[in-house]
């Protein structure tokens, strides 16, 4: 049995490959098979390959692109798709465990499909360490599948520390109180060479741009230290923090969910505590 895997060079792809091996001998289609990126064309290539090889399943990483291409494949083939699986067992039906709510909830489900289509949630399955699978021979695609394609690329304009790659993030929530209140957050971030983050309440209030938002519908982060100031810790926010190594919560409410689920906590008024930390750092220099 052959299983088709949509792959790029990322770890997420190798994790998807590991899960795919349960469904057969993998053969890969490269995310770069069509340049520039054209998701309908990739879906067409996957569909053709799956039919040609009578594939048992088609699997991709649950990245933005992986989910997008697989949804197009599912629509094209008229099959169900289980997105962001953390486990799957072949069978009739296939059983899957998949993420909901950005990983705050898990769903056990039966996938009734002659050809299971699945994406694998990043960082939930150990990466495959075996040799890369053979690549499927790619046939030319129809013009109609190239209508949706990348025609240009715009580089980001801000020169600050990127949230997704920051080693340290100082993040503010509703407790910061105002747009101006972020001055003390920025000051501490500056001293630590950190990125500034925020919760959804803050972007909804217009205090910070959405590019600063950490969470399920913002950026998912993986810093060494995440300092959460005046953030209660709704599931929406926590979904973005799963990769953080150490979390320090500063909040006046010791019972706030984030105060209980952090590694370190400081109770009290962030407007006093944050400047005091900045002062302490300066003092020791």
């Amino acid at each position, binding site marked *: 049995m052959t299983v088709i895997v949509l792959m790029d060079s990322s770890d997420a792809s190798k994790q998807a490959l590991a899960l795919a091996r349960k469904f057969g001998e993998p053969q890969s289609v490269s995310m770069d098979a069509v340049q520039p990126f054209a998701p309908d064309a990739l879906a067409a290539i996957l569909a053709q390959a799956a039919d040609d090889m009578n594939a048992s399943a088609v699997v991709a990483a649950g990245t933005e692109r992986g989910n997008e291409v697989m949804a197009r494949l599912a629509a094209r083939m008229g099959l169900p798709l289980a997105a962001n699986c953390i486990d799957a067992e072949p069978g009739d039906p296939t059983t899957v465990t998949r993420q909901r709510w950005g990983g705050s909830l898990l769903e056990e489900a039966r996938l009734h499909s002659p050809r299971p289509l699945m994406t694998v949630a990043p960082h939930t399955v150990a990466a495959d360490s075996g040799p890369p699978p053979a690549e499927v021979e790619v046939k030319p695609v129809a013009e109609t599948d190239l209508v949706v394609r990348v025609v240009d*690329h715009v580089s980001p304009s801000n020169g600050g520390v990127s949230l997704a790659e920051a080693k340290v993030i100082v993040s503010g929530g509703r407790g910061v109180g105002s747009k101006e209140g972020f001055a003390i957050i920025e000051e501490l971030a500056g001293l630590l060479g950190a990125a500034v983050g925020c919760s959804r309440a803050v972007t909804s209030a217009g205090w910070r741009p959405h590019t600063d938002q950490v969470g399920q519908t913002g950026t998912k982060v993986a810093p060494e230290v995440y300092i959460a100031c005046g953030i209660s*810790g709704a599931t929406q926010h926590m979904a973005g923090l799963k990769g953080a190594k150490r979390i320090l919560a500063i909040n006046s409410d010791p019972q706030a969910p984030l105060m209980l689920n952090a590694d370190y906590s*400081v109770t009290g008024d962030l407007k006093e505590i944050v400047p005091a930390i900045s002062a302490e750092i300066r003092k*020791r220099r």
Partner: protein
Amino acid sequence: MKVLVCVKRVPITGGRIVLTDDARAINTQHLGFTISPHEECGVEEAVRLIEANKGESVVLTLGPPEAVEQLRDAMALGIDRAIHLKTDGQEWDAESTAAALIEAIRADETSNGPFDLIFFGNESADSAGFQVGIRVAYALARPCVAGLKKVTLEGSSVRCEQEVEGGRDVYVVPLPAVLTVKEGLNLPRYPSVPGKMRARSKPMAESTPTRPVPRLELVKLAVPAGQGRRAESLGAGSAAAPAVVEMLQKAGVL
């Protein structure tokens, strides 16, 4: 022009998710409801497009009788009319949801003319299948661009920006098109009191589709085990600053 936005009623989960006794749903007894964050931006974009270009904006949902609240909320923000595909509260999988929406869109377009743009959220906040908008686009044979942070009309085309690592990819597709959007596309407005008043008298169409047997069949839900963090207190107030700095030094970031 005519713009449609599709939304889904979801609970506001707050800090901790509690399941029903049969573990097949979230216990929403003490929760408020909203639409998925990405969709809020879809509603805002639809309202802005019609403000700028004239025409009609429509909101469509598949959901329980209470989803009327979310449709009225959208109309309070400026959407002109609503279509409610009523369910009995049972969850529909993504494939079935898309099928019901496709049928409703075809019926509405037959009576009222085609939509130039159809907006979806990139994924729903709750079940997060990443596929309903794309399925609808395929069935209607319209181009679909996904995960958008910026949408600009350019005559009979639409320019779309999708956030990717290291910047944004740009797509330009002809209308009519289906676009799935993400939070950050715009900053949604708050409803005004007159807006809420007007929403009460805006037209709302209803139908009750039959739920197909789902091919992605929910068995049960589980709250994943925590990451085992139990916060160590570094103190209270500004007196905690030295302990915080020592922690930062130990973590190797200072």
